[in-house]
């Protein structure tokens, strides 16, 4: 099994687990800054997995990889700051 396949398998498990955990946290009615940070962080990590593993930009030129990564980092952070702050 190639390295790519291993990464894709691992990545899909991470994506599913993070989705389940962030949904449970959001539905738990525990409204703390820690929960808000964890949920936002989970979106950033999921975005990174899609960009690096599914889109395979971890093998592309750095400028393209970081263009997409900056989107997945900045947009959830900006949204969280607007809503939570």
């Amino acid at each position, binding site marked *: 099994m*190639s390295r*790519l*396949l291993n990464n*894709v398998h691992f*990545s*899909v498990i991470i*994506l*599913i687990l993070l*989705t*389940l955990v*962030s*949904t449970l946290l*959001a*539905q738990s009615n525990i*409204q703390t800054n820690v929960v808000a940070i964890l*949920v*936002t962080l989970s*979106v950033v990590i*999921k*975005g990174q997995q*899609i*960009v690096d*593993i*599914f*889109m*395979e*930009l971890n*093998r*592309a*030129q750095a400028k*393209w990889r970081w*263009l*997409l990564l900056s*989107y*997945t980092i900045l*947009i*959830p952070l*900006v*949204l*969280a700051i*607007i*809503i*939570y702050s």
Partner: protein
Amino acid sequence: MTNILLFDEINNVPATNKVSEKKLPGDLAMWIFIVMELTVFAIFFIAFAVTQRIQTEMFIEGRATLSASTGLFCTLALIISSYFVALAVEAVRKGNNVAASRRLMLAMFSATVYLALKLNEYTTLLELGYDISTNTFYTLYFFITGFHFMHVLLGMIILAYMGLKARKESYIPTDCNGFEAGASYWHMVDLVWIIVFFLIYIIH
């Protein structure tokens, strides 16, 4: 890297693996299109967040009419769909067009689950009397999710086309840029939904 390229030109030898490893999947036009699409969605996301900040009560009430479990299963359906598309790309690179076609079928089946869930959610909301003109929350909700829904439909058409070409054994491992470009578009649709789910169903 520059030295490697110069060496290759002077000696007229094939590019080294190090150079080919840095290749952008698909073609440049698709990536420019993806960046443009992501920018448009980013504007909608920020508009939604700013409006929520201004009209907090309306958004809390509006979000209460949505089902987080529907959002969750939509997310899982698109993640699994993207997973099968990534596996299809791997199959094409190994020259296995039949496996790629089957994996694209599974990806489209998973995407159909998303479509069914979203249509059910739209129908439920409309039956309850909520539509795009009810208030700002529903205007933005229907606009953002509807715009994304159309992207999923377009993506499924692209996947179906890729699947048909794969079934005809049209892709070869050394020339599958079109396949990679279609797959990248589908992953972009998944990436956008991850943020839609966070913004509309999760944040409160």
